[in-house]
Every structure is written in structure tokens, then in C-alpha cells.
């Protein structure tokens, strides 16, 4: 094994150790377990956005739509279909992913600013549907009246509703599954064609890659991941919010990804952690917390164009 590989392995072990022990080290530092759970879920969403932004090179400003669809899919399943947490997660993921796949066929024909505009437009359509269709979605008040259910393994049940630690580890398990899937895809021949498209679309085309089709696949995959993150988010809050579909939420995800480092796999998780912790801390002091997060964002973009993680990696190298 080369020194580089060993270094990567150590970093990876450190990340997973920090995540596994989060409930134990966060509380002495003034945090609480539910905060760690939020970081994981929003981090997963930011990593899903970055699957497209950082590794295929296309910027979606409407990904909150698929996040929100996942949340509503999970909430509606628990409320009306069956009291099953795994089923709710699958339903949320499918709803986000399938809507993404269908709209993606229209979206991937555009590039650059136009791509971003079309994603916003489609995203807002879902926002207004959730906002207006009060009888189903609860409208402006959001979807209430459901809660995450104990995990039933037949022989025993795990309570994830009242035990914050149990729920954290359940979310971490789900997070690990999706992150492993992302990493697996990125290391595959298909993942390398995504990077080829990011690096040089014309060259990719002239290597025989049907660029639109590959962007569509990447877009669809990222919508499935996003739907899954959204479903987890509904479980975190026992609530689905129409603002979770809004383009400003999409903007937050892009911000987390860029702030953390969009060329690195783990960067968006760091970005989400900074974003969520700052939000939690500052919003108890001032209603203008976003001004401070925004200021940090501007500073990062100006001085560390590769994001916080990119900066850390560079200063070590």
C-alpha cells in the first residue's frame, strides 16, 4: 500500500469513528444528539446534490423538490398506508427518484444557467402543489399526524421514537448505506464517465459517451438519494414542511456542498455540519443568523474556492 492510500484509509477511519461516537462527544461540547442526526440527514442531501454538482459538473437549483417529495412520500405512507418506517423510507425514495427520472428527461437537454433555471422551475411546481393541496398535504401548515415507528424485527423491536441515540444510529446506518452506494458508483466505469463529462464535455462526447443520457442517469440517481434523505428528514421531525421543497432550500444544499468542498466526496457533509451547527447556535441569538452563514459562505468562496475540506487537504499536502 502506498503512503497516499494509507493516509486515505486513516482519514476514512477517523470520519467513521467521529460519526459513530458523535452522541458521546457532542454532548460535552454543548451539542445534543438530535443535532447530530440533522447534520447526517442534511449532509446526505448535500452529498446527493454534490453527486451531480461536484462529480458530473451540472448545477441543480431545484433538488429540494426531490428532498421534499421524499419527505411527503414518507409522511403520507406513515399516515395513510402503513405504520412501517422502512416502507416509508422506500416510498419516499421512490417518489423523489421517479419524479426526478421523469422530469430529468426534459431537464438534461439544457446546460449551465438554463439547466439551473429549468430545475428551479420544476422544483417550484412541486412546492406550489404541496402548498395548495391542503386536503392531502396540509398546505402551508405542513403534513402532521404521523411519527416514525419502532423497527420490528419479529423477535425484537427497536424503539427509535423516544430514544434519541437509537434513532441516531438508525439514521447513521441508512446514511452509511447510501454513502456506500455513492462511493461504489463513483469508482465504477460509469462514475468515471460522469467525471469525464465534468472535466470536458466535448471530449467525453468524442470518446463515444452519449452525454445527455449519462447526465440523465446521474441526475436520476441523485434524485433517488435525495428522496431517501428527504424521507429520513420527515422521520427526524415527524413532520413534512412545504418549505422543504422550496428553491431557497435547494440553495441551502448547494451552499453546504460548495462551502464544504464540492470536489471532495466528504466536503458537503462538513459543509452541512457547519451550516446546521451555526444555524442552531446563531438562531438562538439572532433572527438574522442567515447573514452570518452567508458571510462565511462568501469568505469561503473568495478565499478557499475548493471549500473548507479542500483547504484542509491542501494545507496538509
Amino acid at each position, binding site marked *: 500500500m502506498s503512503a497516499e492510500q494509507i493516509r486515505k484509509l486513516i482519514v476514512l477511519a477517523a470520519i467513521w469513528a467521529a460519526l459513530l461516537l458523535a452522541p458521546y462527544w457532542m454532548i460535552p461540547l454543548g451539542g445534543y444528539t438530535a443535532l447530530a442526526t440533522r447534520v447526517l440527514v442534511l449532509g446526505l442531501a448535500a452529498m446527493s446534490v454534490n453527486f451531480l454538482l461536484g462529480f458530473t459538473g451540472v448545477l441543480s437549483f431545484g433538488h429540494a423538490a426531490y428532498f421534499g417529495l421524499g419527505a411527503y412520500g414518507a409522511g403520507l405512507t406513515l399516515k395513510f398506508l402503513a405504520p412501517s418506517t422502512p416502507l416509508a423510507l422506500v416510498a419516499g425514495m421512490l417518489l423523489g427518484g421517479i419524479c426526478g427520472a421523469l422530469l430529468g428527461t426534459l431537464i438534461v437537454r439544457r446546460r449551465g444557467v438554463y439547466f439551473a433555471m429549468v430545475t428551479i422551475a420544476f422544483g417550484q411546481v412541486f412546492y406550489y402543489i404541496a402548498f395548495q393541496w391542503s386536503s392531502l398535504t396540509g398546505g402551508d401548515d405542513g403534513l402532521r399526524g404521523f411519527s416514525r415507528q419502532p423497527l420490528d424485527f419479529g423477535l425484537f423491536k427497536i424503539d427509535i421514537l423516544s430514544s434519541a441515540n437509537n434513532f441516531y444510529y438508525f439514521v447513521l446506518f441508512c446514511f452509511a448505506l447510501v454513502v456506500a452506494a455513492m462511493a*461504489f458508483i463513483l469508482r*465504477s466505469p460509469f462514475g468515471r464517465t460522469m467525471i469525464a463529462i465534468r472535466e*470536458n464535455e*466535448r471530449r467525453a462526447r*468524442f*470518446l*463515444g459517451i452519449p452525454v445527455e443520457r449519462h447526465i440523465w442517469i446521474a441526475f436520476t440517481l441523485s434524485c433517488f438519494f435525495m428522496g431517501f434523505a428527504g424521507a429520513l428528514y420527515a422521520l427526524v421531525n415527524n413532520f413534512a414542511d412545504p418549505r422543504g421543497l422550496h428553491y431557497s432550500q435547494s440553495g441551502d444544499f448547494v451552499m453546504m456542498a460548495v462551502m464544504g468542498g464540492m470536489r471532495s466526496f466528504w466536503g458537503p457533509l462538513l459543509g452541512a455540519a457547519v451550516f446546521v451547527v451555526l444555524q442552531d447556535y446563531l438562531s438562538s441569538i439572532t433572527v438574522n443568523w442567515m447573514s452570518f452563514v452567508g458571510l462565511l459562505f462568501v469568505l469561503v468562496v473568495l478565499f478557499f474556492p475548493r471549500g473548507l475540506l479542500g483547504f484542509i487537504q491542501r494545507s496538509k499536502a
Partner: protein
Amino acid sequence: MNVLDINNVTKRFGNLVAVRDVSLSVAKGELCAIIGPNGAGKTTFFNLISGFFPPTSGSITFDGRDITKLSTHQRVTLGMARTFQITEIFPELNVFENVRIAAEVAGGYRLRPWINRAEQAQIHRTVEETLKLVSLETKTDRLVGELAHGDQRAAEIAMALALKPHLLLLDEPTAGMGDQETYQITQLIRRLHRDSNYTIVLIEHDMRVVFHLADRICVLDQGRMLAQGTPKEIADNETVQAAYLGTAA
């Protein structure tokens, strides 16, 4: 059998006729050079062959198959590879990774979410052989964006070769190079043509390169095919001399 047959191809952009009724046949194993003054329509002609845009009229046949309406990536899949006047590479990937993407696509793995060890070993062999062919085997770990211009061009050619093409289209392979680099690329193209028997069509401004390499030279002027022939025939052609060589050489 001819690899490429271009029949009476015309391309208009509004009122401008960039390529006017041009026909060209390229035999297997042949190296055909396209020359002509700036604005003669050489690059437009190349873009028509590689499928950047469709011709206004006329047809293009590749390996006996009508490809006039096929898209770029379909033409590549059939065995047509090209390089560009301004090198098109993946600058933030290393030399090996650049060529590996090409080899994997050519191997039919582009949609695969996994690759097994045997397949991976096969791909690695292809990449290493290709890099040896273009003399980049000692620079596999270097980022392509950080290489010298001549090496970047060699990497681009390696990516084209990793596609195992039946036809190689090179758009001004020595553009912007010094004498030493021009010499190296010229020797590379000569090896590909003579030793590996590639069929090559290239656009070139440097007449030393053209007359050194080409089996046949086609002269384009104002979108028309002015003359075609062996290097000697072209050098002796008075029309060509008047239109082009006289002022350039």
C-alpha cells in the same frame, strides 16, 4: 475498400457556403492531408465528417455504412476518433485516467456500475500499450493539465487510439508547437501510419509536416476542393501554387 466516402457534401451557414460540393474517398491504411488557406472550410469539413453538425446536402459513408444522420457518439462507437486543434483533454485527471476512460468506453463498459478484475486487467493493458505507443509511459501519474503542450497532444492522441478506431481524424496536430515538439508528433503520426497501419485524415498548416507524411493531399479553397493528388502532383500543380503554396511557401 474505402474507409470513408464523402459524396458532394455542402454546408451552408445562412448565406455563407462554408463547404461547397466536396467529395473525398479515403482508402484503408491511407494518410490523407487536407490543406488550404485560413477560412477555406477545413475545420467545417472535419466537423461534418465527425458529426458536429449535419451537412446541408450530400452524404457521408463510413465503412460502407451511411452515417450522414448519425450523432457524434454514434460515429465514435462505429470507429471514428478525432483530436482537436485546441487540445481537448481531462486536465484535472492524470495521464492514465484520461486514457482509461477512453479504453473503458471502447470496451463497452461505460454504463457498468462495476468492473471485475480480469476486465480491469485487460483495460490496464490496453492503456499501458497505448501510452507506450505515444511515448508517455513514464508520465502516467502526471496530471494532464500540467504536461507540456506536446505531451498533452500526445495524450489526446492516446485517448483517440484507445478507442481502437478505424479512422483517425487529427485537426492540426502540430498547431502551436516548437520545432522539437513538431518533430516528435510528426514521427508519432508517421509510426501510427507506417507501422500500425492506421487510416488517418489530418488538417495541417505546416507544409514540411504535410509533405513528409501524406500519401495524398487535398487542397481546399473557399469551400471548394481545388485539387487532390500525391505530394508531388500537388507541388507541381499551378492552380494550387497560385492560390496557396505560392504565397505560403
